[in-house]
């Protein structure tokens, strides 16, 4: 990174508005993450409309803060009330809550905050080192490679979404079909408008994601109310030197693993947290009793899920492919502000790219400080009357959908996709492939057809280019892995 880039990104990050919104985002994200049933994806989706009037860096700083805050925030009720705030925090319950029962909630919260920071910083260092290299390599890509990359991203999310590969695949195909609504990217022919000119630019992305993640979440919350079992009002203190030393290697190992999982498109922080926990458990030494209040059982998932945040930013910033559902939602914010994430981001807008990376690093440190000083107050919010909160989410969701184009059509789209999201999840269909397909669909179609035009209609173009052939091969392998993993014997090992 040269001096001009460094000073440019520093100037972007040092803007008081950016710092303020980063802090606001962290506080808002931690609160939402700590409220059981409300996810990081919902927090980011709800806050996107508030960034309409902001320039790109303050907007992204706020969303990055929300993301980091929400991922950590989910662990507070997991440790204190045995109720994970987000799915990624479920692994923290195993040893976090037993520590609370032993009267060591403060210790568990301190180690969770410290581990989240260490994992996050490890992930961000790797992100800073690797993302520009990957982006620079991706500059060599032509249409066949971009098509292959989009297919790879989709195949990964289909294979790791959990449950049946047929279900994940069907949802991804539905998303791809929805992505074809609007003007054809090559010929300009209007498709599937059904007389509605406001669909000319396609199904608007933000109302869809608000419906799928915010409104569907409200339906779910109504459908399955969460009971909070409060045992303490705990707070957080600085982690002790002995705990820091005891958990250091666990944190480093889990941080590296979390980054790798996060960088894999489709694999989210919940997978990273459970993987890290199970490895820490497998490597337990004599006298370490996982599941009964072992402090390393808190450190491992916390470090991994926090590192996963940075990992998920890697494919987003370097290739334009979101690493998980939260970064998929963040694509909406990039597009809204006229910036296309991907290889050209580093080449054309290097200062912004590095400022984003720095904002991720700063967020992890600020989340730690917020956890140390703010947990006591947060516990009171978690115990608030959720009915007021859910009512507010309904209004903010509908308004967020409307505010994009001041068009009531978008409110209807959000409501329809809210029902779609709820129905899909009720029957165990993952929703994330639909969102990723909506993002990658136009990229896949445009590059698929461009490749065919360049090769004069020959489909061999995808297999004669070594890179695209390799990426497509990886996509096939990941689908085969997904099919093997979702076979009935693997789903029900007991028979």
């Amino acid at each position, binding site marked *: 990174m040269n001096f001009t880039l460094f000073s440019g990104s520093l100037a972007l990050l040092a803007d008081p508005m950016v710092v303020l919104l980063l802090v606001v985002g962290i506080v808002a994200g931690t609160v939402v993450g700590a409220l059981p049933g409300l996810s990081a994806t919902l927090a980011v989706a709800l806050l996107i409309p508030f960034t309409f009037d902001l320039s790109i860096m303050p907007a992204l700083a706020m969303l990055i803060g929300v993301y980091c805050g929400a991922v950590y925030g989910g662990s507070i009720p997991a440790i204190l009330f045995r109720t994970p705030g987000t799915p990624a925090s479920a692994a923290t319950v195993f040893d976090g809550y037993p520590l609370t029962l032993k009267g060591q909630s403060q210790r568990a919260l301190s180690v969770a905050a410290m581990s989240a920071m260490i994992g996050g910083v490890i992930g961000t260092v790797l992100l800073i080192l690797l993302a520009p290299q990957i982006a620079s390599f991706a500059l060599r890509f032509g249409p066949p490679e971009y098509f292959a990359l989009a297919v790879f991203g989709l195949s990964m999310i289909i294979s790791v979404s959990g449950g049946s590969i047929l279900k994940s695949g069907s949802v991804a195909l539905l998303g791809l079909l929805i992505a074809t609504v609007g003007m054809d990217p090559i010929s300009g022919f209007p498709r599937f408008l059904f007389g509605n000119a406001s669909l000319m630019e396609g199904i608007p992305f933000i109302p869809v994601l608000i419906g799928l993640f915010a409104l569907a979440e409200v339906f779910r919350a109504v459908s399955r109310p969460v009971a909070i079992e409060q045992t303490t009002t705990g707070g957080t203190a600085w982690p002790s030197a002995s705990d820091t030393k005891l958990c250091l290697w666990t944190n480093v190992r889990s941080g590296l693993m979390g980054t790798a999982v996060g960088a894999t498109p489709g694999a989210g922080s919940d997978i990273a947290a459970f993987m890290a926990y199970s490895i820490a458990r497998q490597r337990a030494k004599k006298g370490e009793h996982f599941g009964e209040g072992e402090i390393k059982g808190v450190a491992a998932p916390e470090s991994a899920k926090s590192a996963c945040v940075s990992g998920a930013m890697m494919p987003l910033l370097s290739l334009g492919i979101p690493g998980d559902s939260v970064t998929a939602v963040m694509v909406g914010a990039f597009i809204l502000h006229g910036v296309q994430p991907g290889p050209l981001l580093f080449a054309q807008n290097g200062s912004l790219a590095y400022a984003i990376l720095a904002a991720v690093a700063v967020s992890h440190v600020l989340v730690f400080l917020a956890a140390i000083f703010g947990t006591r107050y947060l516990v009171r919010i978690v115990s608030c009357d959720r009915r007021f909160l859910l009512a507010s989410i309904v209004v903010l969701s*509908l308004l967020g959908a409307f505010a994009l184009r001041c068009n009531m059509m978008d409110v209807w789209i959000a409501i329809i996709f809210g029902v779609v999201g709820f129905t899909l999840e009720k029957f165990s269909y993952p929703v994330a492939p639909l969102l990723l397909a909506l993002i990658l669909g136009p990229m896949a179609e445009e590059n698929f057809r461009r490749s065919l035009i360049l090769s004069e209609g020959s489909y061999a173009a995808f297999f004669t280019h070594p890179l695209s052939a390799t990426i497509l091969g990886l996509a096939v392998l990941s689908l085969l892995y997904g099919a093997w993993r979702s076979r009935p014997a693997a789903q029900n090992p007991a028979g």
Partner: protein
Amino acid sequence: MMNTAHKTNAWAARVVPVGMLVVAGIALVEALRFPESAGDIPGPALAPMLVAGALSLVAIGLLFRRGEGSDPEAPGEPWPILGMLLAAMCGYALLMPLLGFISGTAILLAACLKIFGHPVGARGWAFGLGAAFVIWVVFDKLMRVPLPQGWIG
């Protein structure tokens, strides 16, 4: 009893593949009307037809898959509450442009509280009006997003 519940669940689980099949069918029929490919240049129907064809096949696969259905042990959905919530949202989308943002939003917030089981008294209405006003200030005044004025405001 359990068998009946399981059968009902199995039928309910077909809602999604049937919906997908309908969407794919409509897309296929509509895509047939798109312009044809010109020589080596693939036309606008290529991608929708490929995707809709694949979706139809996968949806048929899901439709005839054995053991489909949600967990028969799982508690039933509170359909009346979900229906009322959906109706409140649709009512808001229809009436808010006519009534105006603040009044429409205050009514929606109060309705949601009622649906969620909160006794909507003075506190509920105060929350509705207060929150609607704060949101109006943030969006309309600070972020310059023009919100509907309507008859009441």
